[in-house]
């Protein structure tokens, strides 16, 4: 096996050999490697196939910008992870990784045929091709496209890992631990700012940490040695926290940032167990220093995507940091000085290399150094083509014309096994723009720079467009002193020597003799968009960068265009003949690098996903086979399955028992609001549609609450407990909103009212007993209470004791039966329930759930807000005009009840429906029409509630129907998938219209 690790470095521990599997084959690397560096050490460049053309692709970079080396990690159904960048993944013992987007394997990929038919799949191919015939989209095209789309594979089972969230507050947050970040953090921390420094790598130091060029020195030391000292020093600072392996994902307003810390991703399987995998930091910082650095730009030329073509600086890092050379015969293609550093490093390690430079000529310390070493330099030359299918083996260069628009002279063919490209540097302005910052354009080297406009945020270092070390350090120190309003002198006497770049030449799309249509000049490696695609989009009329981006998908892959966006912009500007600075950029959206769902969700999974509210009777329900229904956050018994009954049978049994003898319901979840104050009656007058002033103490009244737009909002029974004391009940789901709404009116519209609202929903548990035998059961529980109709009539309230515990008893009914609701302090709720059950045994007291409750109330035509109403129903639409006071001058929503729209007679109105076949049960939500023949079919309304009533032995339904009030007796049709159901409009009350049962 070839070994490309050619020297020892301090970052690779050669005593710790690590074995890993890539595409099923076992390899070795060392502790300190990333997956990418270990693969390169084994001579592996080819790591994937491109998305569209399935072209062989190799490792391009050494960081977050990597477009090609994304792999699938692990093979377990619950732990596998797609789209992991090999350049960022630290190697660990037992790591299993595989290439993506290729079949059967990366070396021989069937999809590679796309490369040969590529003229047939230009930009917008999908939009253009799959438009016709229209009917093909759903059944043919979409399934096919879905099959071939996507890069990796998602896990198919729940994630077993643990994730965590943490909130922190700092005076200063420094993003990026390169040279300027370290200086900023040191200055802040030494001047008493509580400081946090985050860096996404394992160790601090950015690209300076492996810098070993003799021409770049600080205080007479190699810059890397100087920086190591600085790092040692800041580690001693007590009010500086350093978080490595931590990357900022999002920068929101008010200096609120999200950071992801990797805690176990670099550990072998057995050491990961029971540890938190990733932590999401939610950071509030008074001030933020952005020191995120810059990334090297690729160059856009024909066949610039072959394995073995990397960014020049990445070749340098693989060599000086990981000890790995990317080839043995390397060509560096550049338009700036930084590739010369790589060249000199390679030369020092004995790696043969030559430089092709776009510039006509250039002079600087670095260039002089390279020239002195005898490194061959082709100035004013351009790479026009590369060769080699699975890895580059040679390339062609040509001389550039005077204006740089074309090539001249003869092709020169050079052999190589690796090509480094450097198109200059792009400052990482993501964080700055995410925070709302704007950008300026610097023509000289074609970069977007942060425009400073905030006193709470600053960019320093190369993300601010300062590229040489002297500039970086001087400017950082000055800016931080000003930013933090301090006078730090630590770097006053620092002596920096570095090479200065004097010459620049930037060409976005490099000239070529071959017509553009026949070239493959890739811009976005991951999404396979080329210069040709961008030009086609412009030709087809797209102008906005946002549109070109979406049409060509440039910059829309998992790397979010870190390497491609600038080139796309440059080519658009050149082609359209506009200045790049005026084009603007696409929006930099969070996250900077992809986050796992686990990190975002943290601990809020499984039973912590949502709050669960249980009544104090909950255990009894569980023990008695209740099936539960979620109502808001509450778990409510839905029905009690006795002896393996199904839902229908259980509900029929429960409903029958409640009407024939007695039933009991856990009504604890209804919202309860305690209302006190001298203006309580006036307040109720204003919030309910009916009148409250005359309600006697000890009496209850049903109320309907509207929104200001006149639509029904909530309903419930309110009891007057004493002169200035009421207890309001609300629907289970509406409780919190009703309280908020009432508070809103009290605090903002009617602050003069003396009224206090307290939520007491959780303070009381409620057992509701109904049915002809309910009075007998109550009598057993409260033998001293006079239950006669005279003393305790319907809609009234009494207090009594149950074994010395106070109870509030309301005689109110939601079922139409004689009915009592017993309220007791919640801690006694379970005891109350059990005592009721015990007392009711001889009367077949049957516990019933929400489904039976719904059925019983539907028999009586009582509405459920949110089921029979949907925010568009007025009281009149519900045939409830009786509850709207004519006398009251005002109440919430009153004026809206006679707006021109609310008095329309053809509004949807609540009606009853009876099916012609009494056994036929309608589906809730089913559409209602009068005629199925004339098309389009006129939709009159829909079914809101539907049940089979065991007490009436027929199916009943409530529905909202256009002009329903006038349609009683009319025949309508419910068209279903395979039949039409005939129904007759009826009254909404199906049972006991005379309310005899209330006093049975």
């Amino acid at each position, binding site marked *: 096996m070839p070994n490309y690790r050619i020297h020892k470095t301090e970052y690779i521990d050669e005593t710790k050999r690590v074995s890993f599997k890539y595409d099923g084959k076992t390899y070795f690397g060392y502790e300190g490697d990333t997956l990418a560096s270990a693969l390169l050490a084994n001579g592996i460049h080819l790591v994937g196939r491109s998305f569209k053309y399935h072209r062989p692709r190799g490792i391009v970079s050494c960081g977050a910008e990597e477009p090609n080396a994304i792999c699938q990690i692990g093979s377990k159904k619950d732990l596998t992870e797609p789209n992991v960048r090999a350049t960022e993944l630290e190697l660990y013992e037992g790591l299993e990784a595989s290439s993506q987007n290729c079949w059967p394997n990366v070396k021989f990929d069937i999809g590679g045929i796309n490369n040969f038919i590529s003229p047939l799949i230009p930009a917008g191919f999908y939009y253009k091709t799959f438009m016709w015939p229209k009917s093909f989209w759903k059944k043919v095209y979409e399934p096919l496209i879905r099959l071939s789309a996507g890069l990796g594979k998602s896990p198919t089972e729940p994630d077993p890992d643990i994730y965590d969230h943490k909130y922190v507050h700092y005076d200063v947050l420094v993003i990026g631990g390169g040279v300027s970040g370290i200086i900023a953090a040191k200055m802040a921390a030494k001047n008493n700012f509580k400081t946090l420094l985050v860096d996404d790598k394992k160790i601090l130091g950015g690209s300076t940490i492996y810098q070993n060029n003799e021409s770049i020195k600080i205080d007479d030391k190699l810059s890397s040695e100087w920086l190591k000292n600085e790092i040692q020093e800041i580690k001693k600072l007590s009010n500086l926290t350093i978080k490595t392996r931590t990357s900022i994902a999002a920068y*929101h307003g008010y200096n609120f940032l999200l950071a992801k810390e990797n805690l176990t991703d670099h550990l072998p399987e057995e050491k990961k167990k029971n540890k938190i995998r990733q932590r999401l930091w939610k950071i509030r910082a008074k001030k933020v220093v952005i020191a995120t650095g810059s990334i090297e730009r690729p160059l856009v030329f024909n066949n610039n995507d072959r394995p073995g073509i990397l960014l020049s600086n990445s070749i340098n890092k693989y060599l000086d940091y990981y000890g790995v050379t990317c080839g043995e015969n390397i060509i560096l293609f550049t338009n700036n000085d930084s590739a010369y550093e790589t060249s000199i490093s390679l030369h020092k390690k004995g790696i043969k290399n030559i430089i092709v430079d776009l510039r006509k000529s250039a002079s600087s310390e670095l260039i002089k150094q390279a020239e002195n070493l005898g490194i061959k330099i082709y100035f004013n030359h351009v790479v026009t083509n590369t060769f080699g299918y699975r890895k580059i083996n040679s390339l062609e260069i040509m001389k550039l014309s005077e204006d740089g628009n074309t090539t001249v002279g003869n092709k020169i063919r050079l052999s190589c096994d690796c090509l480094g490209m450097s198109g200059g540097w792009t400052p990482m302005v993501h964080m700055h723009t995410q925070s*709302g910052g704007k950008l300026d354009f610097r023509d000289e080297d074609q970069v977007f720079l942060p425009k400073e406009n905030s006193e709470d945020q600053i960019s320093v270092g190369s993300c601010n467009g300062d590229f040489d070390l002297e500039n970086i350090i001087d400017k950082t120190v000055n800016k931080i002193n000003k930013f933090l309003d301090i006078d730090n002198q630590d770097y006053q006497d620092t002596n920096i020597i570095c090479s200065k770049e004097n010459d620049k030449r930037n060409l976005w799309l490099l000239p070529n003799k071959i017509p553009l249509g026949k070239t493959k000049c890739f811009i976005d490696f991951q999404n396979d968009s080329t210069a040709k695609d961008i030009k086609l989009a412009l030709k087809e009329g797209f102008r906005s960068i946002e549109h070109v981006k979406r049409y060509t998908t440039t910059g829309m892959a998992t790397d979010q265009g870190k390497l491609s966006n600038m080139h796309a912009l440059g080519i658009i500007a050149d082609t359209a003949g506009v200045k790049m600075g005026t084009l603007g950029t696409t929006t930099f959206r969070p996250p900077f690098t992809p986050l796992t769902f686990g990190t975002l969700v943290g601990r809020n999974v499984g039973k912590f996903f949502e709050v669960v509210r249980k009544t104090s009777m909950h255990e009894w329900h569980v023990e008695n086979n209740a099936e539960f229904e979620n109502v808001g956050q509450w778990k409510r018994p839905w029905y009690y399955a006795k002896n393996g009954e199904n839902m229908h049978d259980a509900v029929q049994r429960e409903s029958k028992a409640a009407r024939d003898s007695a039933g009991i319901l856990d009504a604890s979840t209804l919202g309860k609001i305690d209302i006190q104050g001298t203006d309580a009656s006036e307040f109720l007058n204003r919030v309910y549609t009916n009148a409250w002033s005359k309600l006697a103490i000890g009496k209850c009244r049903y109320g309907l609450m509207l929104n*200001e737009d006149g639509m029904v909002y909530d309903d419930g029974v309110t009891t007057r407990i004493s002169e200035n004391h009421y207890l309001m009940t609300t629907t289970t789901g509406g409780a919190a909103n009703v309280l908020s709404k009432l508070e809103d009116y009290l*605090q903002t519209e009617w602050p003069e009212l003396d009224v206090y609202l307290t939520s007491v929903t959780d303070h009381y548990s409620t057992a509701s007993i109904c049915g002809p035998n309910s009075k007998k059961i109550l009598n057993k529980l409260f033998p001293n209470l006079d239950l006669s109709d005279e003393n305790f009539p319907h809609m009234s309230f009494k207090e009594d004791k149950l074994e010395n515990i106070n109870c509030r008893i309301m005689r109110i009914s939601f079922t139409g039966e004689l009915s009592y609701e017993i309220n007791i302090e919640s801690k006694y709720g379970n005891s109350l329930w059990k005592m009721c059950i015990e007392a009711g045994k001889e009367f077949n007291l049957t516990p019933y759930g929400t489904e039976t409750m719904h059925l019983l109330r539907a028999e009586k035509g009582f509405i459920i807000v949110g089921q029979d109403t949907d925010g568009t129903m007025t009281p009149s639409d519900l045939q409830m005009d009786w509850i709207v006071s004519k006398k009251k001058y*005002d109440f919430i929503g009153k*004026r*809206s009840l006679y*707006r021109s729209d609310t008095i329309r007679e053809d509004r949807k109105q609540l009606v009853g429906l009876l099916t012609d076949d009494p056994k036929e049960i309608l589906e809730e939500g089913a559409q209602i029409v009068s005629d199925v023949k004339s098309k389009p079919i006129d939709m009159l309304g829909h079914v809101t509630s539907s049940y089979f009533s065991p007490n009436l032995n027929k199916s009943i339904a409530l529905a909202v129907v256009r002009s329903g009030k006038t349609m009683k007796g009319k025949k309508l049709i419910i068209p279903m998938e395979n039949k039409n159901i005939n129904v007759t409009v009826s009254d909404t009350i199906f049972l006991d219209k005379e309310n005899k049962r209330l006093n049975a």
Partner: protein
Amino acid sequence: MFLINCPFCGERDQSEFSSGGEAHIVRPKQPTELSDDEWAEYLFMRKNIKGIQFERWNHVHGCRKWFNVVRDTSNDKILSVYKMGEKPPVNYK
């Protein structure tokens, strides 16, 4: 994510608050006297300003008090915070 200076509790994270839309819309004292158009003006019409906007906020996961906020919607800066019933600051118009 804003930091909002609740006039009763002090500076808190936005997640503790809920927004209640435009401020200083007074519920008409005599709604029955209003025409449909006048009532609709109160009921439906809201400004959507790019720039300085007066808003109602509720410290719903805190003291549950309503209060007013002056916010520049173009940069989300909160310029002033004041209690219900207090006069809006005059320097923002």
